[in-house]
């Protein structure tokens, strides 16, 4: 069947890409200068350092190190932190759900604003309110998100003291990664609200525009005039008839962004002190924790590729029905 062929082809692509990604990150990390042993035993002798390097396998030739890493990876072993000896997989299970939840909330908030705005500007396309909203969104894009983060944490956090400016409490997802972390949803929300809003603001403008252009196209379609001819109210037509066919691209992108922006929230996590993957990566770079860093990057890259693959696949499955419906 044609579908299975496509799926098989995609899976193969997936594996190849993952292979290259692991190879690439491995090499990239090796480029980092410095010697991790200086961080672990800062006052050790050269001999001690040499011995430690041997133990850590840092003296083996590169391809051997890569092969070792790969074999371990396939067995689910993400290595150990040089410094503490803790298995990286623990660190990942600690920080990944944090970043994921942050991303999900950010997308959710962004959609919450972008959808009504997108509908409104499409409905009133070309009018002054449309132009005004678009201009504001455009201006908002010029604001760096770390600036927004700084100011939000200043005003809301320090001045008004409504929300904390650093820290974390487990939410609904953490327990699946580590059963000992029981949810404290209210605190969780309080810690993540500002960072999520900061991340969302950057997305709102893009999402709004995306929906707007799809909606404008949909509103030209015959079935909208038909709905109008039935005597339905504009509200109903917009939300019930126009929105659904127009929202596919938007939802796909929002979904994609959950997986793909994880690495990109580093600055936000650093400013707000959220212990997610971003923060961990940042720390690992400076402690020259090669293996830990590598594993983080691999996890993120794998997530990225998987999310892309999954959404592609979903499209291929959903598409025929939608395309047949839309075909004239």
């Amino acid at each position, binding site marked *: 069947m044609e579908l299975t062929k496509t799926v098989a082809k995609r899976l193969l692509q997936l594996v190849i890409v993952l292979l290259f990604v692991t190879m690439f990150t491995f090499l990239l990390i090796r480029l980092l*200068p410095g010697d991790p042993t200086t961080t672990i035993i800062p006052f050790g002798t050269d001999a001690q350092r040499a011995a430690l390097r041997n133990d850590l396998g840092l003296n083996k030739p590169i391809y051997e190190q890569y092969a070792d890493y790969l074999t371990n990876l396939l067995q689910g072993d993400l290595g150990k932190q040089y410094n503490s000896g803790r298995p990286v997989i623990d660190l990942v299970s600690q920080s990944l759900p944090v970043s994921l939840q942050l991303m999900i909330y950010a997308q959710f908030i962004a959609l919450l604003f972008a959808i009504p705005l997108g509908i409104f500007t499409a409905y009133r396309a070309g009018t002054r309110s449309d132009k005004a909203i678009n201009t504001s*969104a455009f201006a908002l894009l*010029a604001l*760096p998100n770390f600036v927004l983060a*700084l100011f939000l944490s200043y005003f809301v956090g320090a001045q008004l003291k409504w929300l904390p400016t650093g820290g974390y409490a487990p939410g609904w997802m953490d327990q699946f990664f580590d059963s000992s972390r029981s949810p404290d949803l209210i605190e969780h929300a309080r810690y993540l609200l500002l960072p999520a809003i900061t991340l969302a603001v*950057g997305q709102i403008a893009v999402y709004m*525009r995306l929906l707007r252009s799809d909606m404008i196209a949909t509103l030209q379609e015959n079935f909208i005039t038909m709905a109008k001819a039935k005597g339905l109210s504009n509200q109903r037509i917009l939300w019930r008839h126009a929105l659904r066919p127009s929202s596919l691209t938007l939802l796909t992108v929002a979904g994609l962004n959950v997986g793909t922006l994880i690495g990109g929230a580093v600055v936000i996590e650093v400013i707000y002190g959220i212990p997610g993957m971003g923060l961990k990566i940042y720390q690992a770079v400076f402690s020259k924790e090669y293996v830990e860093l590598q594993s983080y990057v691999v996890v993120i890259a794998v997530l990225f590729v998987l999310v892309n693959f999954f959404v592609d696949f979903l499209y291929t499955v959903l*598409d025929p029905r939608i395309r047949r419906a839309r075909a004239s």
Partner: protein
Amino acid sequence: MPELPDTGLDDEIGSGPTATEAFEREQHEFGGVAGDSGLLQVGAIEAGPASTRRRGAGLGFGAWAAIGWMGFIVLIAVLAKIGILTWGDANESFASCARKGPLADEGGAKGFLLGCDSNGRDMIPRLALGAWTSLLVAVGAVTFGFIIGGTLGLIAGFSGGKTDTILTGMFNVLLSVPVIIMALALVAFLQGASGEEGALSPEMILIIAIGVVAIPLIGRITRASSLTWAQREFVLASRAQGAKSRRIMIREVLPNVLPAMFSIALLAIGIAIVAEGALAILGVGVRPPTPSWGNMIALDRGNLFKSPHIVFEASLLIFFTVLSLNLLGDVVRARFDVREGGL
């Protein structure tokens, strides 16, 4: 009547990752400047609400204001670097002024129109010099990225087939590594490579790091544009005349790709400015006392509660500069954009 953009959802099954196309459409809709975590996963491609699009000859008020602002900033930056009209010394500390904002009425803040930073250094010359640094890094990185990424993208789009697949594959692999990490790793590597003496200045390191990170992003966009043009009839006509591929690429496709690329370049400079800021907050980049807009924010973010003016002033400058660049990028694109209708 509102214009009819294409929805981009009509394609063959299995002819390409349709979700990725949706993803790229997101980038298509707006210059994703600065809104996204400092260094962007989603690259900026096209910016602009319809309100800035002008049919007809005149440039709107916005465009002229943007040009004015950019001219102003560049002028200030150059003058500060050369050393003329420095409005004070960027490195001289005035203890009496430390951490005082422009509105502080306690003695010492007088004469410092924009206040001072936490080390008591006058903000005005620092911001001016910072403009130079930030712009240098941004323009340098974008140029670097365009020279390499642009060329690769041009070749990929034009050649198609195996070359294209390999190059695109390379771009995709590079892009699966989060941008921040790439940049951090590169900076760390280059810092190590340049040794204790600092054979490479921090600015140079940043230029290379941000530039390399930009390569796959710019490459992808150039490829798309190059692909569109390469499929046009005049290229076929050229081939039919027996022209060599390389000649066609340079003579026919490149001049058409350039205007769109120019618009992207403007947007990219804005992104690079923000990237410099993000990296500064992460602790890498231009080292003090050399000021850059980014590191001024990074250095004094701890003082945000008591002396917000420092961060505020630098942020404002970044905001207006990026906004102007976005606007200009949009105007350029609107000017040169030939409506393909469906591509």
